[in-house]
């Protein structure tokens, strides 16, 4: 079963309970950076009277996992995109590739790791909900089966059409994400980029990567053929190889 998180901007009161619960769960130091960083896997931001969370969207087909050369990032069957620092070599391609700019880095460390929300994978495996969802006092952050959360999101929009902007962010963005967001205003206004990239990002790369065997096979045969023809002609020309009318070749 694939889990997800539904975050409803209209219900968030900006208490930052999720932020503190996340810090405690992940042993992150207290800080006042107030942005995603190696110290904050989620933050609550505000615009006018709206509060909204930033966190890993846990894409269904994550760009970060597809670009990681050593498979340190991985999409689990349960939904969370997890990270194994023992595999990581620190190329930071995940940070470049993530369409939501989520993975952050321990720049101050001589042995740095990538930092991002992993949807409390250990808790999820134990049948518990992520720390942030448990801490939320209003139900703005809810955890559950992604399919059911998606239905719930559409139900809320249908029942209160004037309260919600008619779009479930994460249903199709970047090929769909495990985190779904509802809002009362258009998403770009509160920093959720839409830009119409509904294709899963790994596909941009895969349409080229899948041609590699063809390039190797075609290139190899073409080059060998070229060399064979040119070399044979030159040998015949300078007399080290002769061809006779009976078709026999002699070196």
């Amino acid at each position: 079963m694939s889990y997800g998180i539904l975050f409803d901007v209209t219900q968030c009161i900006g208490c930052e309970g999720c932020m503190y619960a996340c810090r405690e769960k992940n042993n992150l130091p207290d800080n006042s950076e107030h942005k995603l960083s190696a110290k904050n896997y989620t933050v609550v931001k505000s615009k006018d009277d709206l509060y909204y969370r930033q966190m890993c969207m846990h894409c269904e087909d994550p760009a970060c996992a597809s670009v990681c050369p050593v498979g340190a990032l991985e999409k689990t069957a349960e939904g969370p995109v997890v990270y194994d620092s023992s595999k990581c070599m620190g190329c930071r391609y995940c940070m470049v590739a993530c369409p939501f700019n989520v993975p952050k880095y321990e720049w101050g460390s001589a042995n740095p790791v990538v930092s991002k929300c992993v949807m409390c994978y250990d808790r999820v495996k134990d049948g518990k909900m992520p720390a942030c969802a448990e801490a939320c006092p209003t139900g703005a952050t809810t955890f559950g089966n992604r399919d059911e959360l998606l239905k719930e999101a559409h139900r809320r929009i249908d029942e209160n059409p004037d309260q919600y902007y008619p779009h479930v962010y994460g249903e199709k963005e970047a090929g769909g994400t495990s985190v779904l967001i509802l809002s009362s205003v258009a998403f770009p206004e509160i920093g959720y980029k839409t830009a119409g990239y509904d294709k899963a990002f790994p596909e941009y790369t895969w349409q080229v990567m899948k041609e590699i065997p063809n390039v190797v096979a075609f290139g190899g045969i073409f080059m060998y053929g070229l060399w064979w023809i040119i070399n044979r002609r030159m040998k015949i020309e300078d007399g080290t190889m002769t061809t006779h009318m009976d078709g026999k070749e002699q070196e």
Partner: protein
Amino acid sequence: MSAASLKEKYIGKLTFWKVVFFIVVAIGIYATYVRYFRGLGASTNLSDQFPWGLWIGFDVMCGVALAAGGFTLAAVVYIFNIKHFHPVIRPAILTAFLGYLLVIVGILFDLGKPWNIWHPLVMWNPHSVMFEVAWCVMLYTTVLALEFSPVVFEKFRMEKPLKIIKSITIPLVMLGVLLSTLHQSSLGSLFLIVPEKLYPLWYSPLLPVFFFISALMVGFAMVIFESYLSARAFNKSLEKPLLMEIARGVVFMAMLYLILKALDFTRRDAWGYLFQANFETLMFWLEVGGGVIIPMILLSIPRIRRNQTALFWSVSLVVVGLVMNRMNIAITGMQRSAGVTYYPSWMEVFITLTIVAIGFAAFRMIAKHFPIFETTEPIPAPIKKKVKVSVRSKQALLETS
């Protein structure tokens, strides 16, 4: 041996460039210390908003492209069998080999956990372009080492290994060309996954193709560039007729590149971006105008190809244009979406300079002590042809009699 004569032997006369070299390397060593003991944050201007900078943009992406002369010329000599280019192949392969070694050094600086650099050997993710890049670097550096090995075997008169390596030259060269094709193009493919981040002047589904063609273009240019500098440094005569021919290769590749660019801009409907008053457009014009169009026009004029100084400066434009292209893609084109301006820290710059300086010094040392430049021409091409004709006519005579 006294200290003075030791110094004489290993350091020699202190020239201006040697002093520059030692100062750069000394600062570079300090920066290296900061990088490894205090981390990337203390030594670079990289950040969560801008995770790739000078080391990826220049040391890796330009390093690989500027090493393209190796496989380009190997293909010309061994696969197309245009043997009279033989005198310039060894310097080209040495440049490529050193280039790749320095790229690996650059990667070791840039990786957050460089001691895990071997991980792609055992931890596979074939969907990752970076995985492809890692394997291409490893395999092609090995191929380059083998392609270069005859020089070492010759120097130490090791007949047997020399014979073995010469017997596999052709498959080795073909493998090298295939790996280079994949590697050059894959550096472009790295950016396919950022359609919303890379500025539209550079983002294109054809990025891998552009990287490959521009690598061929600069591969030819680098052979000329490096032959000219070597000729000056080692007081030897320039293989001018050869270089004039190679210059035609640059022109051809530049034309191909521009035609593809035009088709690409049309297909993506991106012509409008060429005429906007912003930093990206300026950099793009400098890159393509100064680094492709102008040298293409210059090099297509025979009078300029014949003049070795003009030839050198024309191909220098191509080299600078290529460097701008890779840096524009890795840095200029990514800044707007990142919302920050990145410029390298002085430590990033000095580590890069140190790597380049060591590259130059290594080339000089190897060229001095190993048979890199052919001193005795085998038989110049035109005369060879005459010999062929006479052999033939002899045969013809024998057959008729």
